[in-house]
């Protein structure tokens, strides 16, 4: 009786050391501009070449501007980093979607969109949100730059197997409740270190009912629960998503692949080291109030009161978080008023996310108190599709800005950022201090909740307004 993780792990072991450290074969390597330059330098210094060029796809996403692309990149340091990626890819012969390619976008959006991510693969990238690709029944995880170089040079990584955790979400999600809310509720439940040392498999009827976009959102946030990798079994939804994508197999190969892919699920009665159960029907829209994703509550909740917390270290952390966030104990979440709205990131910038936000906004206008509201689609193709559906008009008419694809204000490496003290309703994945700009204050929410907050000027239960 094997788990999906057992199957994916075992099939990729090339060699095992006596202490269990294994050499794992890597099928897909996604590369972006921030964590790769030093790895390419390392290759050059040692006179090595990439092992398997057809396993690599590169794209610049972290630094790219989301406005006026035709004018190039204003920031000379960002520009140098992107030019360095371009040069490295040209020199070594790596396929890269360049900044003005329609297929350019956030690495974790374009992999699946292109069919570059396929079930049963090991997928790595120098980015912690690589867990996203686990939605396709992949073993997908983020790596550091030394490992980027290691994979380039050897097509393998040295690893030890993690423990396994199953997160079972049974039942039906309520109206207006999304995969993002499941993810945040899970993190609220087990904490940001709850998954440390584990590979997580999400299952249960609520997970099966999610679209691929929803499953990607859920697996994307696995790292915020401390687990390097998250995954979901392959089913019809997975296979239908992949069918016909540019890099997915065709004809006889497709048929053979599908037969194999259908085996990519945990056996019945497979043994997990830990099982967490969540009732989907009980999950409400979530909003983070602090500086760690585990500092989260429901839309009808309140900011916690440090005086009610017994543990000294935790109380101290909550006090510090409230000070940074400029919030008072016991304040209702619905009284928190964002200054800016960010709809985007590898967590929530896919077509379904934009549709969900647009549905809430349609025919309405953002509140006067909102200084800036931006939508940053996950890729050029997502942007195109949204425009075909007229979503751009809905956003623009509501007072949103409609931007070019990239990581943007999720981590503020480009010009999109919060000013000190500014508060943002953000569909991204991290509310760390300074994440969206120095002194910026982030509240993580779903796209529908961010849209509802934009219209109301404060957080509001999307279930009551839409």
């Amino acid at each position: 009786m094997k788990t999906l993780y057992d199957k994916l792990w075992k099939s990729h072991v090339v060699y095992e050391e006596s202490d269990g450290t294994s050499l794992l074969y890597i099928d897909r390597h996604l590369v972006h501009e921030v964590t790769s330059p030093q790895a390419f330098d390392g290759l050059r210094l040692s006179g090595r070449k990439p092992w398997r060029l057809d396993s690599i796809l590169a794209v610049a996403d972290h630094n790219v501007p989301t406005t006026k692309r035709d004018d190039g990149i204003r920031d000379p340091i960002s520009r140098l980093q992107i030019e360095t990626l371009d040069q490295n890819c040209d020199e070594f012969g790596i396929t890269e979607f360049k900044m003005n390619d329609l297929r350019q976008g956030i690495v974790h959006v374009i992999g699946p969109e292109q069919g570059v991510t396929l079930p049963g693969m090991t997928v790595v990238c120098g980015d912690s949100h690589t867990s996203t690709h686990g939605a396709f029944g992949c073993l997908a995880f983020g790596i550091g730059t030394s490992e980027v170089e290691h994979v380039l040079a050897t097509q393998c990584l040295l690893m030890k197997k993690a423990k396994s955790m199953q997160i079972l979400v049974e039942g039906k999600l309520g109206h207006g409740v999304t995969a993002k809310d499941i993810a945040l509720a899970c993190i609220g439940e087990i904490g940001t270190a709850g998954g440390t040392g584990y590979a997580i498999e999400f299952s249960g009827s609520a997970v099966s009912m999610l679209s691929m976009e929803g499953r990607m959102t859920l697996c994307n946030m696995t790292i915020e629960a401390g687990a390097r990798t998250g995954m979901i079994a392959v089913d019809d939804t997975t296979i239908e998503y992949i069918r016909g994508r540019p890099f997915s197999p065709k004809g006889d190969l497709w048929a053979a692949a599908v037969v194999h892919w259908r085996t990519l699920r945990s056996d019945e009665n497979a043994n997990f080291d830990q099982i967490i159960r969540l009732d989907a029907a009980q999950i409400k829209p979530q909003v983070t109030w602090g500086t760690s994703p585990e500092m989260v509550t429901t839309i009808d909740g309140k900011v916690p009161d440090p005086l009610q917390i017994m543990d000294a270290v935790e109380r101290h952390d909550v006090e510090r978080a409230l000070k940074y966030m400029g919030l008072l104990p016991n304040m209702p979440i619905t009284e928190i008023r964002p200054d800016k709205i960010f709809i985007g990131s590898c967590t929530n910038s896919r077509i379904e996310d934009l549709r969900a936000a647009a549905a809430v906004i349609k025919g309405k206008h953002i509140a006067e108190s909102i200084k800036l509201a931006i939508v940053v689609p996950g890729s050029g193709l997502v942007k195109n599709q949204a425009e075909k559906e007229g979503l751009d008009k809905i956003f623009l008419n509501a007072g949103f800005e409609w931007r070019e694809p990239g990581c943007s204000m999720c981590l503020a490496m480009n010009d999109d950022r919060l000013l000190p003290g500014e508060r943002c309703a953000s569909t991204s994945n991290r509310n760390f201090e300074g994440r969206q700009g120095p002194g910026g204050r982030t509240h993580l929410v779903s796209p529908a909740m961010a849209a509802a907050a934009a219209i109301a000027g404060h957080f509001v239960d999307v279930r009551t307004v839409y």
Partner: protein
Amino acid sequence: MEKFYLCKELVAPLDRANVDTDAIIPKQFLKSTQRSGFGKNLFDEWRFLDYGELGMRADQRRLNPDFILNQSRYHDARILLARANFGCGSSREHAPWALQDYGFKVIIAPSFADIFFNNCFKIGLLPIVLNAAVVDRIFYEVSLTNGYYLVINLEDQTVTAPDGESYSFEIDLFRKNSLLNGLDEIELTLQHIEKIKVFEEEWRMKQPWLFL
């Protein structure tokens, strides 16, 4: 990678849980395409009162006198004592680079985030997990002692306090050998080059669609 030797080093305490990699090295410094020089921006938003950008000179910045590493008694610290889930967040190896470039050789905490923990070994920075009660005790002793040193013995897998109390820690044999001998992992892996080639050929036969 440099070999890891037995050492006796000064300890600096960083008393907060969930220290994330954005705090260890903020994103604006990730625009560098170099591997070195991140130490001067370690914990930038906590260490300085002004906003740091790549290329700014450290001696022209406004130090935050309240930040622990800015206290003169910790200037020569080579061991960072930390709380649970140290290094959570992004996979940026720039975080261990910054800690090492600043001068740290060892980080002690009750737990670390997985990717950060893994990245440390790749560059010869030793993360040591000690149980929470022991870490509490060391925090307490550091607060009472001016000049608190720990002896780190990787060979024996022990941390020894000034009073002679010794705490043992776990480490994978493979990682231990790599650190003690300063081994290059890519070199090690390439010793198995034939096995990789055989695996790859069989894999290609079984799942040709992975090689499109």
